[in-house]
């Protein structure tokens, strides 16, 4: 099977095999995950020297740590001696990572410090070259830390490009930026990694249907009436509502329509209004009026602004994903308010979320449908709104109505091109 047979020229047709074929998955590892900037964690999780969190780059376990030098270090969590993970905790603070097998120990930056057995042998190994495999490129933007296995990758800023305009509409709203709360919720779903990504990249169109028991039609009508979908570069996308100029603060303010705004009481509401009252001076008029819905950063990072959660879709083969999600709150909010605001994530999303329990089920069923026989002459139709996106005078990227599936077509064009680039290479 050739990659060119999987996705047609304009990506309006996408093969079932894109989702289910083991060979395609191997190409994804080499063509995408080996070469792209991948999200590792947020600096709020590793403030002090010795702090660390676990991460994954595709199926490769990585430790993201704050070194004793204050810098960011990403080491592959696999001992150079026999390959065991040297760190088992989700997060913490340490001076050393120690392999349980023979107690080789590593500094928090990943350097090999001790080999207990070396005193008994004559030829001493060169410890300087036996540290944990380092992720060669690590960079941070607005506290979001990414790593890349390709030394020659473009800068993180260039990689994110105009997506920064949309991300800043959220990040820069808060004087102290944002903070990730606790260890991620880690959830194994029998689905392909790309469907959670596609769902969060721009698919607000399923809301009124899959979630019709929870989301009333009128709410969805309002989303569609004020909604935009933007693609700043293939694979990066944002959907959001642009509230009319002069709309009341309670209708525009982030969080007011969530659990905090509805049930959090006067203190939380006042806090949310206060943030909105400075939004225009912080992020400018047009972004002050933005109420984000879904965001996607290629290849597998998602941000659900409406329920303030970051998510990463970690592949575990064609038919399995380990989905990680975190609640995100303004860093300088009082603790009592952070505790209220996080429920806007956990009530609806995450492993117990009232909405996400419906999403995860359809992701599983989509994989089952992608793995059937005798239907390869019926690729999936991705043609809704074909060619209807266009530049916008005030918003970066190509922009269209939310029903236009161009966000997914652009994703699959980039996906196809990146797989083709490594096809035939070993």
């Amino acid at each position: 099977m050739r990659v060119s047979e999987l996705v047609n020229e304009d990506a309006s047709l996408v093969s079932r095999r894109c989702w289910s074929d083991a060979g395609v998955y191997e190409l994804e590892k080499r063509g995408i995950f080996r070469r792209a900037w991948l999200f590792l964690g947020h600096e709020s999780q590793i403030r002090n020297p010795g702090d660390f969190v676990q991460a994954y780059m595709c199926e490769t376990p990585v430790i993201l740590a704050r070194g004793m030098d204050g810098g960011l270090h990403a080491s592959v969590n696999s001992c150079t001696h026999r390959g065991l993970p040297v760190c088992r905790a989700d997060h913490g603070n340490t001076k050393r990572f120690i392999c349980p097998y023979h107690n080789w120990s590593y500094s928090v930056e990943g350097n090999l410090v001790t080999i207990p057995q070396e005193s008994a042998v004559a030829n001493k190994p060169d410890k300087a070259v036996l540290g944990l495999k380092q992720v060669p490129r690590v960079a941070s933007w607005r506290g979001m830390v990414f790593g890349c296995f390709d030394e020659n990758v473009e800068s993180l800023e260039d990689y994110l490009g105009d997506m920064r305009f949309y991300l800043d509409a959220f990040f820069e709203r808060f004087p102290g930026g944002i903070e990730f709360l606790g260890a991620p919720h880690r959830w194994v779903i029998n689905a392909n990694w790309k469907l959670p990504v596609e769902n969060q990249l721009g698919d607000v169109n399923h809301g009124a249907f899959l979630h019709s028991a929870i989301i009333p039609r009128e709410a969805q009508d309002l989303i569609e009436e004020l909604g935009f979908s933007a693609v700043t570069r293939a694979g990066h996308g944002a959907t959001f509502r642009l509230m009319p100029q002069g709309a009341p603060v309670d209708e525009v303010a982030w969080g007011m329509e969530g659990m905090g705004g509805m049930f959090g009481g006067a203190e939380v509401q006042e806090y949310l209004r206060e943030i909105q009252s400075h939004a225009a001076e912080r992020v400018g008029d047009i972004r002050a009026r933005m109420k984000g819905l879904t965001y996607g950063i290629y290849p597998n990072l998602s941000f659900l602004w409406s329920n303030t959660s970051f998510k990463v879709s970690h592949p575990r083969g064609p038919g399995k994903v380990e989905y990680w999600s975190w609640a995100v709150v303004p860093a300088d909010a009082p603790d009592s308010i952070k505790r209220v605001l996080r429920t806007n994530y956990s009530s609806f999303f995450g492993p117990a979320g009232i909405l996400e329990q419906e999403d995860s089920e359809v992701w599983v069923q989509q994989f089952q449908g992608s793995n059937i026989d005798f239907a390869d002459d019926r690729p999936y139709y991705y043609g809704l709104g074909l060619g209807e996106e266009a530049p916008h005078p005030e918003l970066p990227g190509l922009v269209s109505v939310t029903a236009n599936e161009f966000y997914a077509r652009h994703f699959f064009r980039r996906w196809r091109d990146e797989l083709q680039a490594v096809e035939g290479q070993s």
Partner: protein
Amino acid sequence: MNGPSLEATPQQQRALERFYYYEARLLDNRQYQQWLALVSPEIRYLMPSRVNVMVDNRARGKEEMISVDRELEGPDSLGCPIREEGYIHLMVRAERAFKINSWSENPPARTRRIVGNVELVGQRGEELSVLSNFHLYYARPGGESCVYSGQRRDVLSPAEQGYTIEKREVIMDYANIEVPTLGLLF
């Protein structure tokens, strides 16, 4: 909770078990509206998240080193509990089961739960602190079957139908979450 449970009278113990069996039957029979009547309008329904924590060297050799509670990111933490719910959440969860467009409930899962190890561990005025364990078998058409295992830490107050659930904290026994949803009524 340390040490044995309080010395409940046989009648008290029987009343608690009778209540929990009734509750389990309502939930397995999908009589969620009747189940809601067992719940206080002020209920706190909590599920901490469960984290792989670092060993605290100072606690080496002591039971606190591997205590379950060290693994929990609960409501007072600045982590993110899986569930921090009130009556309105439970009402939405209960009601969606009766909507034909609740796709993750349609067709509904077949469940069977066994509740045991019922221990009265505290009493303050009329309020009782009660522990119980559960195993819940879950089979959903189109999906894989699974077993949920956990502990419930309840606060109950006396009521006509036995008790009212004032607070429930569900401690799930998961490492990675490999079940379709943790949003069930446990």
